C-alpha cells in the first residue's frame, strides 16, 4: 500500500488533470452547442468547475484564503446563469 502522503499528492494531481479536461470538454460544448440552452449549460458547468479548481488550489497550497473567492464565484455564477436564462425567456432581466 502506498504511503498516505504520496497517495494524497497523486490524487491531487489527478484531480487537477480531471478538472482541466472537463473544463476543456465544457468549452467544446460552448463552441459547438446548437442551442442557446446548451451554451448556458456549458457556461454554468464551467463556473462550477472553476469553483473546483479554486478549492484544489486551496488544498495544494494549504491556505484558507481562497474560500471567499470560491463563495463569490458560486454566487456570481448562479446569478449570471439565471440572468442569462431570464433574458432569453422574457427579453428583459428586470421587469
Amino acid at each position: 500500500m502506498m504511503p498516505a502522503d504520496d497517495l494524497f499528492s497523486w490524487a491531487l494531481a489527478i484531480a487537477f488533470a480531471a478538472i482541466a479536461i472537463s473544463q476543456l470538454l465544457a468549452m467544446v460544448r460552448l463552441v459547438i452547442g446548437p442551442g442557446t440552452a446548451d451554451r448556458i449549460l456549458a457556461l454554468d458547468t464551467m463556473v462550477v468547475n472553476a469553483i473546483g479548481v479554486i478549492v484544489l488550489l486551496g488544498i495544494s497550497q494549504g491556505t484558507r484564503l481562497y474560500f471567499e473567492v470560491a463563495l463569490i464565484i458560486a454566487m456570481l455564477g448562479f446569478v449570471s446563469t439565471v440572468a442569462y436564462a431570464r433574458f432569453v425567456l422574457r427579453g428583459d432581466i428586470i421587469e
Partner: protein
Amino acid sequence: MNWAEIGTYAAAVFLLVGALFTLVGAIGLLRFNDAMTRLHAPTKVGTVGIGALLLASMTASFVFGEGSFHELLIMAFLFVTAPISANFMSKVNIHRKTCVPPPVPPHGETWSTLVKDEIDQVPTGTQS
C-alpha cells in the same frame, strides 16, 4: 495507523471520487444528442463531484492545519442553486423549442412557460 494517516487516505479518496464525478459530468455534457438529456449529467453529477472536492478540502484542513468547516456553506449553496439553474435551462429549452415538445397537461391547462402573457403582446401602435 494513526488518525492523521486515516484522514489523509480519506481526503485522497474524496479527491479521486470528486475528480471522477466532475469528469463524468463533462462527458455527459458532451456526448448526449438531445438538449434535455444533456441537462442531466452536469447539473447533478458535476455538483456532487464538486461537493466531494469540498469534502476533501475540509478533511485536509483538519489533518494538515487548523480545521475549517466553512466549505459546508459552498456545498449547501451549490445544492440549493443547482435545481434552480436546471429549471431555468429546461424552461429555455421549452421556450426555444430546441427539444422534443412536452405533452399537454390534462384538463385544459398549459405549461406556464408556454403561457402568452402581456409582455409578448405589445400593441403595434405604441412603437412610434
